[in-house]
């Protein structure tokens, strides 16, 4: 490992950690993470990954920065209003850490591009804001065998699940949710409220999960669903096991290829 003097100083607080050390930092430097969505979850995730010295960051998001985003999407700022989110992200992340290799994709993740994209990365972070996309990320990562961290946040509540490729750690989103929540459950004006700091907390957890898996430190949230209620500030984990009948991750999956018809919000 040949870190420059500047890198040794920049990453000193990682290297000091017994669980990271010089070897862990090198793994982080060699690692690539794809972040789906440069919004409330993707923002803190991208910032902490770049800060930690991740080698490559891919960010995919089709949208432009809007005023209501700035309440929580801390990757962006007032001068970047109207700009593509990935462009705004690129500017901020380069400023934070010029070492970070960036792949910025102004597009929507879809059946036609998901597999090619996820297979080029070591870990995927689901920073999407709708369940159709969450299922797409899940299926693409299961099919390609790429570990990932699912999360969803609404209001003050959130859930986080990491999926590794080892059998006992590989319960996926479809093991817990057989179908997408119907329109009635998710499309509700009040449901679109979320406290920025809660999204920040969750996206940071996702970044920590990615770094732990890449560096080989600690225990990821695999086989455990983290359930957060930020109003009570309670954190609990629920054991989740792989569903032997899971349509995508079981031994005889029904979903073996992606098709956009699978990912329409009902």
């Amino acid at each position, binding site marked *: *490992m040949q870190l420059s003097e500047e890198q*040794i100083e920049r990453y000193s607080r990682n290297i000091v950690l*017994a669980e990271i050390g010089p*070897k862990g930092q090198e793994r982080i430097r060699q690692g690539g993470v794809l972040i789906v969505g440069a919004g409330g979850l993707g923002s803190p995730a991208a910032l902490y990954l770049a800060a930690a010295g991740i080698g490559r960051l891919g960010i995919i998001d089709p949208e432009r920065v809007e005023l209501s985003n700035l309440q929580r999407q801390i990757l962006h700022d007032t001068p970047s209003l109207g700009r593509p989110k990935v462009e705004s992200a690129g500017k901020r992340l380069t400023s934070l850490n010029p070492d970070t290799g960036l792949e910025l994709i102004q597009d929507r993740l879809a059946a036609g591009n998901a597999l090619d994209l996820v297979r080029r990365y070591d870990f995927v972070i689901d920073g999407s804001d709708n369940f159709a996309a969450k299922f797409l990320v899940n299926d693409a990562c299961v099919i390609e065998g790429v570990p990932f961290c699912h999360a969803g946040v609404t209001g003050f509540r959130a859930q986080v699940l990491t999926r590794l490729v080892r059998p006992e750690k590989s319960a996926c989103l479809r093991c817990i949710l057989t179908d997408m929540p119907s329109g009635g459950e998710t499309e509700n004006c009040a449901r679109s409220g979320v406290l920025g700091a809660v999204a920040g907390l969750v996206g940071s957890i996702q970044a920590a999960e990615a770094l732990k898996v890449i560096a080989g430190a600690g225990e990821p949230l695999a086989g455990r669903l983290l359930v957060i209620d930020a109003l009570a500030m309670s954190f609990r984990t629920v054991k989740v096991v792989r569903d032997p009948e899971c349509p995508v991750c079981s031994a005889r999956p029904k979903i073996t290829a992606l098709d956009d018809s699978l990912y329409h919000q009902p």
Partner: protein
Amino acid sequence: MGENFLDLSGVACPMNFVRIKIALDRMPAGTYLRVRVDSGPTLREVRKSLREQGYEVSDCIENGDHTDFYITA
């Protein structure tokens, strides 16, 4: 001198600790690194951190402003 020697005189925590870890990471297991740090609180902090993280520290030789010790990689 034929030994691995890391002079960290004047280097404060945690950078001294970071450099020790990087040096050890590059050495074959079982070999020795001789480290020089400032005597006093710096020495105490570094030694404590090394021991906490399971490194074997031995043979402290104090020489006024600085102290040398050995660690096994």
